[in-house]
Each structure stands twice: as C-alpha cells, then as structure tokens.
C-alpha cells in the first residue's frame, strides 16, 4: 500500500515539473540562457588518445557544428559530455560552475539532450508511448495515462512545428519522422542544449531541408544545438560557428560566413584536399555490361525493378542516381548474382550471365563493392589479409584446392596494403580495427586488384572520411582509364555527378532519365529523382 503511493507521488511530481517547465516556457517565449563549456577534456583508451585537451563552448541560441573525420574523437567527446564516459582530465562547466556527470541522467537533468545517430525507439510502440518512456504520466494505481502523454506530445509538436501524430506506430514512420520523435523526447526532458550525432546521415535530401528548419525553430525558441557531422556543406549551411576536430584535438574554428569547404576540409585532414574529381573525358569502347528489359519482383509481390535496359561500355563510368529505396539496391543485388530476376537478360563481355552465381560473376570479371561494407563487404572478425583474399581465396594462387597458401596470401596482402594506402601497422590485425575509410579501401583493393572487366560499386564512399573518399574516387577513375567499365550506384547526388560520364536516374524501379552530368544542373537531376520532370528547356538537355 505504501510503495505505490510513494511512486505515484514521485511520478506526479515529475509530471508537475514537466508541465511547469512547458508552461513557463510557453509564457516566456524562450528558455532561460545557459552556457556550456568543456575545458581541457582528455580521454584515453588503451593505445589511443581519443580526446586530447579539447576546449569547446556552446551557448543557447546558437548552432555549433563539430566537424571531423571518422575517428577524430567527435563521438567520444559527446559521450563524455553526456555522462557515458568519464574524462581522464578536464572539466565540464555550466554557467561557469563545474559539474560532474556520472550518467546520462545527470546530463539530462542539467539540460543536455542527445539525439543519437541510431534511434533509441521501440518500433512497435506509438509515438506517445515512446516519448514518455521512462517518465510515464500515470493515473491512480500506476496505470499509464496515455491521454496525458498524447496531449504532451501534441503540445511539444505544435510548439516546435514538428507535425507529429501521437498515435502513429513508430515502425510505420519514415526515418525523418522518427528523428522528430527523438527530438520531442529530448525536448520533453527539458533540454536546453541538444546534441545531434550525424543527424543527416540517414535522411533524404528533402528530409535534410526539413531537419534544418526544425533546427532553426529550436534556436528561435532559445535552445542551443550541437551538430556533429562530417558533411561540410551542411555545417556551412546551418551553423553559427564551426569547430574542427582532428585526431582528438581541436584543429581550429571556422566562421561559416567566410570559410570555404576547401579550407575546412584542409583543417580536418591536415592537408589540401581535392574536392572535385579530376578526370579526362571518357573514351568509351565496346559494351561490357548489357542489361535488357530487366524486371525484379520482391517477395511481397512489388515490382522493385521495372523493365530496365542500359549498357555500360569499357572505359566509361555510368552513375545511377536516385533517392534510397527506388530499386537501386535490388538492381545491384541482381547484377551481382545475389537476387533472382523475373525477366530480362544480362550479358557481361558478350557472355550471358543472366542466371550466374556470384562466384561465376567474380571469375567472369566482375568486381563488386557492396553497399554496406561491414555487413556485406567484409568479415570484420577476420584479419585484413583474410579479407583481402575473401573473393579470390579459391584461386590457384591462394589455394591448392584443400589447403590455403597463407604465405602467398600474406605477401599479396602486404603489397595491397602498401599500394592502396590502407593504414594499418599489421595486416594480420582484425579488419574491425580499421577506420571506415580504411575498411572501404580493403574492399576496393580486393576488387580492383583482380583481373576485372566491370566494377559494380554501390555507395562506394558512404560514411567515410574526406581523405579516403578522394583516394577511392581516384582509384575508380584510374580503373576507368585502364579500360574497365564502371557502374556506380549512389544516393549521394554530388558523388554521382562528379564521377560519372553518364547519369541514369532511377525512380520507382524505372530509369526515368539518362543525362550528361556536364550539361545538367543538380536541381534538374533532383527533380527527376523526385519523380517529376524539369521544364521543357531543361528536359531538352538530356
């Protein structure tokens, strides 16, 4: 009898606090000011200093972009701030007085909110249920007061123009909307400073624009925003200040009004970086990949690839642009032999490979860089050497049919590590110890070093650092110049436009346009990607 009453009392207290904070906030219009400072933060892990004497400050009412390559220490720093890690040295100050966070609960009660890259939502719950998880408003006897939860979601959603339906089931919502649910969660817990960890990585271009308008609303309401990213264009668009991290240290600060992408990239990488792809005009030769009337139906009966025909010639790069989920993944899986097609014909170098297995395609001269390097491209629990021979271990060079010739494999691995600039002290280390960019270089080295006629590259540079992107692009162009046919499938429009000699746009399983990237604007390609057609004059360019 006693315990439930105490708990009810506690919960009521929480709700009152929540309600009063909402109430006061709506009345004043903006939250009270707050200044957060990180001073001399150092965090060491065995063998690596993740943060080295980092100083940072953020106040309410501004957007601070924290940029840096993967592994530069951005996430570690934010985990220190959020109470997940304890810093070895340094202190955190709020309004000039030192605070100690031993858990996220401390950080939350100090007014810091975090929206993680991977959402922390229960997929089968409604928006309202997810939002109040952990701070559930209750009626008598501890029953969940879902009406109150709904009402709270509606209030917050209205106040910040988030447009959320409290009764929608989270798993039915698109990624962009799920992110807004996370934002509401943070706001309901009374955050004054909201940290976004790579928030745009999972969003489509139009969702990114919406996200930016949400950030502006938050700022107008007096919140502070920390925006962690490695996309420089976005940092320049939205931030008031930019801080650059490199190898755990603050490499400098930039003013988005005056700084250029190239300057910030140089700060991030530590040297001048080539942001555009340098290539000569293509000299296409014979047709290598010929796809005729290809259709693929998924297990649910939807036509995911719908009567597609195209040709990729030797010595040219063909790019497939499109918003994620318009059949590109299925197209690549079918071309690489992993998915059955329903109709159509595929020839590789004149040979019919319509029903070939992945192994047959490898030996017929296809190099495949899969979409997801950790799930499909690598066995991260194996060594770099083992991963470098993953697609040709059965070759006579590495295997006599029964035994592996490991000395030979190690010798080749050493060569590839040197030739493809894979940064590791020892190729016998696990592939999981490599950074994302170096993992991708392992795949690129493995596939391009084989004797191939066609490269099938899906999202070849997703989520990797600027230096590695530059390097991988160079390698792909080099491969083209040596007479290999290249098919690039990417949702990063910039990448497709920069690399390709010809661009195909996919929309709802069909190829809706074939364009010359030199003669068409990003905007027009974007319109094709969204399923509409640019005006007559723009269309005539294609």
């Amino acid at each position, binding site marked *: 009898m006693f315990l439930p009453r105490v708990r009810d009392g506690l919960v009521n207290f929480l709700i009152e606090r929540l309600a009063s904070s909402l109430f006061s906030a709506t009345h004043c219009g903006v939250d009270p000011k707050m200044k957060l400072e990180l001073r001399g933060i150092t965090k060491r892990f065995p063998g690596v200093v993740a943060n080295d004497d980092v100083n940072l400050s953020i106040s309410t009412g501004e957007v601070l972009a924290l940029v840096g390559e993967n592994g530069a220490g951005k996430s570690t720093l934010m985990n220190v701030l959020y109470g997940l890690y304890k810093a070895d040295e340094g202190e955190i100050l709020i309004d000039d007085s030192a605070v100690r966070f031993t858990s996220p609960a401390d950080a939350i009660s100090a007014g810091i909110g975090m929206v993680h890259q991977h959402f922390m939502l229960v997929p089968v719950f409604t928006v309202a249920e997810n939002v109040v998880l952990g701070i559930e408003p209750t009626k008598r006897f501890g029953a969940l007061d879902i009406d109150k939860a709904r009402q709270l979601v509606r209030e917050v959603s209205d106040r910040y123009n988030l447009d959320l339906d409290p009764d929608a089931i989270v798993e039915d919502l698109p990624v962009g909307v799920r992110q807004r649910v996370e934002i509401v969660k943070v706001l309901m817990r009374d955050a004054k400073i909201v940290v976004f960890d790579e928030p745009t990585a999972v969003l489509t271009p139009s969702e990114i624009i919406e996200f930016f308008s949400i950030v502006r609303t938050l700022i107008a309401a007096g919140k502070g925003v920390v925006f962690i990213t490695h996309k420089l264009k976005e940092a320049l668009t939205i931030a008031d200040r930019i801080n650059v991290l490199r190898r755990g240290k603050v490499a400098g600060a930039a003013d988005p009004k005056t700084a250029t992408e190239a300057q910030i990239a140089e700060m991030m990488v530590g040297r001048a970086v080539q942001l555009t792809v340098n290539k000569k005009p293509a000299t296409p030769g014979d047709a290598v990949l010929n796809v005729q009337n290809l259709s693929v139906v998924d297990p649910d009966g939807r036509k995911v690839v719908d009567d597609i025909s195209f040709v990729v010639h030797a010595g040219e790069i063909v790019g497939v642009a499109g918003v994620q989920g318009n059949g590109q993944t299925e197209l690549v899986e079918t071309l690489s032999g992993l998915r059955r097609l329903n109709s159509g014909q595929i020839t590789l170098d004149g040979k019919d490979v319509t029903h070939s297995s992945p192994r047959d395609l490898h030996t017929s001269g296809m190099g495949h860089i899969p979409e997801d390097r950790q799930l*499909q491209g690598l*066995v991260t629990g194996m060594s770099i050497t083992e991963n470098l021979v*993953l697609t040709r*271990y059965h070759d006579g060079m590495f295997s006599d*049919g029964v*035994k*592996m010739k490991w000395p030979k494999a190690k010798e080749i691995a050493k060569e590839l590590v040197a030739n493809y600039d894979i940064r590791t002290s020892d190729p016998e280390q696990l592939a999981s110890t490599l950074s994302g960019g170096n993992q991708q270089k392992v795949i690129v080295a493995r596939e391009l070093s084989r004797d191939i006629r066609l490269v099938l590259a899906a999202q070849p540079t997703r989520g990797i650092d600027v230096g590695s992107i530059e390097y991988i692009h160079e390698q792909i162009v080099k491969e083209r110049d040596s007479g290999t046919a290249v098919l690039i499938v990417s949702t990063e429009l910039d990448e497709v436009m920069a690399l390709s000699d010809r661009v195909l746009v996919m929309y709802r399983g069909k190829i809706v346009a074939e364009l010359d990237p030199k003669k068409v604007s990003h905007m027009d390609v974007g319109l094709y990607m969204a399923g509409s057609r640019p005006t007559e004059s723009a269309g005539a360019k294609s």
Partner: protein
Amino acid sequence: MKDLLKSLRYTLLALVASLLVGAIIIVITDVDALKSGDFGKAFSTVFNAYKSLFQGSFWGVRSISNTIAGTTPLLLSGLAVSIAFKGGLFNIGATGQMLAGGMTSLWVGFAFDGPGWLQVPLAVAAGAIGGAIFGGIAGLLKARTGAHEVITTIMLNSIASFLVLWLLKTTLFQREGRPDPISKPISEASRLPRLFGFLDGRVDLVAHAGFIVALLATLFYWWLLKRTTVGFELRATGLNSDAAKYAGMKTKSLMVIAMLFAGGFAGMAGATEVLGTYGYASTSLAGNIGFDAIAVALLGQSSPIGTLVSALLFGALQAGGRSMQANTDVPVDLIIVLRALIVMFVAAPLLVKAMFRVKSQVVSQGQTFRGWGG
C-alpha cells in the same frame, strides 16, 4: 599466443571465483557446522573437499587416468559443438550424434572379425561416419528448408535415443539372455587399448586410447580451421554469412559441411565410449555429455586449444568430484554447481573483472552462433 594466455587467464579467474562461491555453498549446506557456529570445522570441510577434489583429479596414476577417461568424450563432443559455432550454427544435437556414432562403431565392432590394428580404426571411422550422417541431416534441413538447427538437433536427439532403444532390442544387437536393452559385447580385438595397460593388474586404470583419438581430432580441427580452404569458408560464413555470400561462397553447402564435421566429431565421441569405456552399448551411452559439450565449447570459445583446456577442466572436475563424494560429506552434485558457476563467470567477464580488478578494456569474445535470425 597472447590471446591464448589472455583467455586462459579469464578461465582461471572464473575457476577461482566459482571455487570461492562453491566454498560458501559447502559452508551454508553444512547444517551441523552452522548450528554449532563452529567455523573452524566449516573451514576444514571446505579444505578437505577441495583437497580430495584436486587429489581425485591429478594426484597419482589412477586420478590422472580417471581425468583422461572423463575428458575423452567431452573433448570430442566439445569439438562437435565448437565447429558448429565456427560455422554460425548451434549444435545441441551432440547427444544424438554420439548415439548414432556409438551404434555404427558397435556394429563394426562385432560384425567384423579382423586384427586389432585394422578393426579399431575401422570402428572409430564408422562411428565418425554414423555421427556425420546424423549431424548432416540437421545441416541439410537448415540449408534446404531453413528449419532452425536448434529445433532439429533437439528433435534428432529424441529420434536417436528411441532408435537406439529399438535397435538394442533387435536380435542383431541385443545380448542373449537379457530382457533389457543392452548390446552384445564387442570382440576384444575391437576394444580401444588401455593407456596404462602396461601397469599389469591395475584394472582400475580406465583411460583408453580414445584420448589419443580426441587429441588427434583436436589437431585436425585446428588444421581444418587455420590451414584449409573449407575452414576459411566456414569461419567466414560463421562470422558474417552475408559477406560470405557476397564473396561467392556457397553458404548453404557450408552449413551442411559444418554439421557433417560436427556430427563426425560427436560420432567419434560415441565410438570411443563404446570401444573404450564400455565395450558394449546401452541407452545411457551418451548420458549428459552432449549437453556438457556445449559448456565446454562456450568456455573454450570454440578455439581448438580452448576446447581442449575446458574439456580437461571438466574431465578433472568429474573425476575429482567422485573422489570428493567418497572421501568427504560433500555430494558430487557440487560439481554440477561448480561447472555452472564457471560457465556463468566466463559468460560474465565484466563480473570477473570487477571481482579481481583486472584492468583492460577489451575481453575477447569467442565465436558463437548467430541466433535465431540466421
């Protein structure tokens, strides 16, 4: 080598931790000592129990022989679970595969009448083949229909035990003049020779050459994983079957291959029990070994050396436990508790680290199966 030492250290710490908890259990179950409040006596009970546990497992030829005899089937069936883990599968069917292997080796044991040097290897090989066929069924079912191997191997265990019950009642196998399901004895030439047979007159030294078979199997397991193409494919499939598929490996065939090898190892465990330990077959041939094998594989993190070490540990505990029960008031059931505690402590490396204040960020995690999604 460094990894080996590291994993050995955790196993050792887990052993120490579980002996400590076991001591507490001995004390609180010793009602007399608690009543009288005589903690000196309680301490001496613990001391004597652990002393005879140690003596019963390593002190003297007889103890070592008992440990070896206990280790042999645990090691072979432990390999059966380990290799399945390496291929990304959870083999709960070592019991059934042992029974299958035991019966085929038994049949060779009395159906043929050759010289020992031919008869014994033939019977062991027959055991491996029988077990492999039985394990292969589970692999084939998974590859063809997607039926989860946890379900199918458990079902196959039941099928095997009833199959053995029926076979042992047939005239081909049943011992003349016996109403219960027990087989004819195999010929003396088919018996695995006793390891300490040179010590004349010591019939209590039960260790047999099955241990050599098990050691050779462990060596083969290492060679298969590290040196062969199939082993490379198995490991890749077990760690990331999608990447293996993208790399052109036939992951479905590899499932069957993993289960064939798994069944082969377990089948040899059954064979060495029939040909070495018993000399005949009964329904209790496999006992609990097939399930203890899971703990052996988990504790050994599926590595060849780890499986060997943990099988030895379990074999020693089994041998020592019997002598502990005989010499002190502590029942042999404590061994089951100790084994469970060891596995628990190994499964909870953070707990052990906290207990012994080990400072290190990473604890290497062994390869186990992928779960229900795979």
